[in-house]
């Protein structure tokens, strides 16, 4: 059943959208939040367990200090007030993937409160997103529904539970209502979550891969007639797990709610789900039927105490923040805004920076990662960093080009060899004998052979028509198996024609 949608441009003219985001970031600690179970993505089901993470009778949680430190760093990056005393509470509800049938989360005494994040929009404008809190909690396990058509619980004949993820530390970052977005609500939402991703990567506290579920967001949207009105009823779209999905969810909900309100209808306070296949959100359960979670302070855990000195210590370890870094690198690399944006959008900033650090020019590094390698990553449907080639490899190739040891064409072949798993650039060059022929004797002979084989072309060249020179160069390249330096060849040809 398709829902009525209003055109976005019309919707934002008629209504003032207010959004709110709850972003879950999985921390990349070695062990779980409350026990020493090792964490690894993709392990066999139910192998990363202890009595604590399985909630066995008698087991007790103990807070992983590393997770608290990670969360404090995130709080500092979000300009939050870091609380000296924070507390874990129990959120009680029955669900098969919850080993204790309660989640341990922070409720009325979160670690990080009251901050903000400045996000840079496409046109360079800075938008300040107000942060309500960033608290720590543990993740649930994972249910797999078997026997149904689409992996959903409806129609399944049984379900499997994997508790490996149960107990993995999360930080939930909750914004205050984000107002005054105008028509840019979706763009702001996307930029905000991307900025969080960049920050947690810079802090090295999360793998932050949305496709692996390291990050996911709940998207709240409500409309009101004017910014002076009180907030409208909101919908909450749960667990959106891609940047594009977040942006599309915001726009879809604005359009859906606008159409609904326009007809005199009422927005229901409900949880919804973003469906990538249909590009729509679908209604879930009404919030009024929601669980009463019966929060109360977890008596198994003493309050978390963080001293001012410890916070100062962590503050000293804070790396450069992504936006500052971007501006610095753009200046260092002498790039235009749009060139820099291409790098950001391609997720290639880290790779290019490392390639430059390894000795390549910025232009060279950029050319590789946005050109040939992006193309290859697209073809393989993987991220750039998942390609089997390192920034150091690219830097090596670039150095060989600069030294005249490789032609552009040979360089490309070398890179392809590395991607094909044939080894390091030098190993690939060795294996295939990729070397620029600099021996003038050999080149001269190849040019003479080409002249002999193409007398008509030589005639044209001699008459001053240089257009068909490519035929000669092509023949020379063929004879030298591509290892001739094209510039040297054309120089020779010109010499011969004139001479």
């Amino acid at each position, binding site marked *: 059943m398709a829902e009525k949608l209003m055109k976005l441009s019309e919707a934002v003219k008629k209504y003032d959208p207010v959004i709110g985001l709850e972003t879950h970031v999985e921390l990349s600690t070695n062990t779980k939040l409350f026990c020493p179970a090792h964490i690894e993505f993709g392990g066999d089901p139910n192998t990363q367990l202890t*009595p604590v993470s*399985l*909630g*066995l*009778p*008698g*087991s*007790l*949680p*103990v*807070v992983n200090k590393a997770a608290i430190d990670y969360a404090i760093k995130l709080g500092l990056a979000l300009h939050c007030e870091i609380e000296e005393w924070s507390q874990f509470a*129990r959120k*009680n509800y*029955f669900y*098969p993937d919850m*080993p*204790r*049938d*309660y989640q341990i989360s922070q409720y009325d005494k979160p670690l990080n409160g009251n901050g903000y994040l400045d996000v840079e929009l496409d046109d360079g404008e800075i938008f300040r997103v107000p942060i309500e809190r960033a608290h720590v909690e543990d993740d649930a396990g994972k249910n797999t529904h078997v026997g149904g058509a689409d992996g959903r619980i409806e129609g399944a004949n049984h*379900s499997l*539970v994997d508790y490996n993820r149960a107990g993995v530390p999360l930080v939930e970052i909750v914004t205050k209502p984000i107002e005054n977005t105008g028509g840019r609500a979706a763009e702001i939402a996307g930029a905000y979550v991307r900025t969080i991703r960049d920050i947690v990567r810079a802090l090295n506290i999360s793998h932050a891969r949305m496709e692996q579920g390291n990050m996911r967001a709940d998207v709240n949207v409500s409309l009101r007639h004017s910014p002076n009105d009180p907030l409208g009823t909101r919908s909450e779209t749960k667990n959106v797990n891609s940047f594009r999905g977040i942006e599309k969810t915001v726009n879809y909900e604005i359009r859906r709610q606008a159409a609904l309100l326009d007809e005199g209808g009422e927005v229901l306070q409900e949880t919804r789900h973003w469906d990538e296949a249909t590009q729509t959100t679908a209604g879930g359960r009404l919030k009024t039927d929601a669980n*009463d979670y*019966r*929060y*109360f302070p977890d*008596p*198994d*855990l*003493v309050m978390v105490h963080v001293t001012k000195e410890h916070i100062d210590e962590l503050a000293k370890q804070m790396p450069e923040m992504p936006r500052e870094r971007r501006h610095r690198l753009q200046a260092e690399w002498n790039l235009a805004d749009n060139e820099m944006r291409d790098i950001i959008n391609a997720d290639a900033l880290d790779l290019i920076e490392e390639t430059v650090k390894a000795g390549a020019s910025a232009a060279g590094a950029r050319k590789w990662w946005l050109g040939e390698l992006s193309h290859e990553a697209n073809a393989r449907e993987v991220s750039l960093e998942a390609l089997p080639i390192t920034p150091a490899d690219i830097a090596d190739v670039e150095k060989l080009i600069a030294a005249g040891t490789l032609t552009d064409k040979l360089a490309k072949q070398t890179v392809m060899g590395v991607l094909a798993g044939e080894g390091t650039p030098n190993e690939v060059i060795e294996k295939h004998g990729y070397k620029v022929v600099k021996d003038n004797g050999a080149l001269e002979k190849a040019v003479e052979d080409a002249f002999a084989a193409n007398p008509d072309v030589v005639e044209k060249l001699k008459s001053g028509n240089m257009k068909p020179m490519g035929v000669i160069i092509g023949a020379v390249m063929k004879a030298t198996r591509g290892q001739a330096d094209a510039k040297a060849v054309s120089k020779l040809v010109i010499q011969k024609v004139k001479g």
Partner: protein
Amino acid sequence: MASTNELVKLSASQMAEKLKSGEVSSKELTQAHLNVIESAEPSIQAFLKISGDTALEQAEDADKRRAAGEELPELSGVPIAVKDMIVTKGIETTAASKILEGWVPPYDATVVEKLKKAGMPILGKTNLDEFAQGSSTEHSGFHPTNNPWDTSRVPGGSGGGSAAAVASFEAPLALGTDTGGSIRQPGALTGTVGVKPTYGGVSRFGAIAMASSLDQIGPVGRTVLDTALLHEVIGGYDERDSTSIPEELPKIVKAAREGQKMDLKGLKVGVVKEIGGEGFQPGVKARFDESLTLLEQMGAEIVEVGAPHFPYSLGAYYIIMPSEVSSNLARYDGMRYGLRVMPPEGVPQTAANMMAYTREAGFGDEVKRRIILGTYALSAGYYDAWYGSAQKVRTLIIRDFEAAFEKADVLVSPTSPTTAFKFGEQIDDPLTMYLNDVATIPANLGGVPAMSIPAGLSDDGLPVGFQFFAPQKRDDVMYKPAAALEAALNEKWQAPLWSNLKTPWLDSANQTVEA
């Protein structure tokens, strides 16, 4: 060598001496207790599970370690019973609930690890009220336990099994858990010594949770010194329990030995004005007053102290405890371990329905009653009125203790208002049953250590308990007067209280021993 009868009637510290001198081996001592268990269980029913084979292996190992000259703790080789609320690797652990029937833990509680390290063979797992919820052990999901002093009466609860096992000489020592009096009240009703240590003084890791902010593991024995020795084995900081106190234990055994000198000069003993009066049997009151006189005769100064908020402790307890119970017992849902009951035909076979049918079948009435109470107390809109207010009362009780300990070194009261009652007498009247813990609950709410020792027999011929409280982290402070009072009473009676206990099961055990 000594007969089984003589051996098992020794105190644990006397057994330890005989083990040290080589007069008896741990294997012989353990076998003697297994013999008593075999002959006593039909009438006492203190155990849910007897682990005789592993106990004998552990005993042999303890003997080997001793023979090899290893430096061993004093209680090495002395066997022990463990309340079935504490998890034991490889030995079925049920909390006396059908919902956990057949569950064999893959890990040991910290206290069990410590027993093993000390070389103390584990005889078996003792009975309790289901999930330690009750004051009579009648709420066990499997069977009741009988009071060795009168088998038509309850042994108290929830730790009736541990208390009865120690009282009947099935075990010289046992572990209990105390949330509102579950170690001390059975101690009083069976004429044994029961100690609830300072909250955080003994690791709770591996103690099945009832009410986490109140639960504490503690020792059960027949003498104050025996419980002190065991307390030092199981106590101390554990990084696996966030609420564990990161400090060294006070010198408990030293304090108990000091007390045996019967000199209490300079000690101020505070009688808690608010505990006693209505509801307390005259015989309980009489034994309490006699003990006060003995303490005074040993040089202690007796003062009266007020604890104005103690009368509210029962009310606060019955909000806080069920609230935590409702959350702690959520995990028994049929998903991962223990009982699973599928919905009957015609009812959708969903996870939610399976959970509901499992919990309906697996939990007993008292457990369900408390889960419902606690779920209500934590509900949105009620939280502040119930749980919030109860926590405020708790703070006031903690302040009462602090103020009282400025006036006295230790506080004292009767442990239980009555002696052991008959089976079925209170089972249908939860409120009367809850009143059994009126004297013991303040210690749990305040987090302070407290212990019960036998103070004699009431006019009905049944044991009466005398309770000491000490300040937080100062468990040693109560062991001294407790040991002194015990010595004075023994001197007065010219024998320990248990010499009055008729033990027909020991006679039959004696006939069957000596291989």
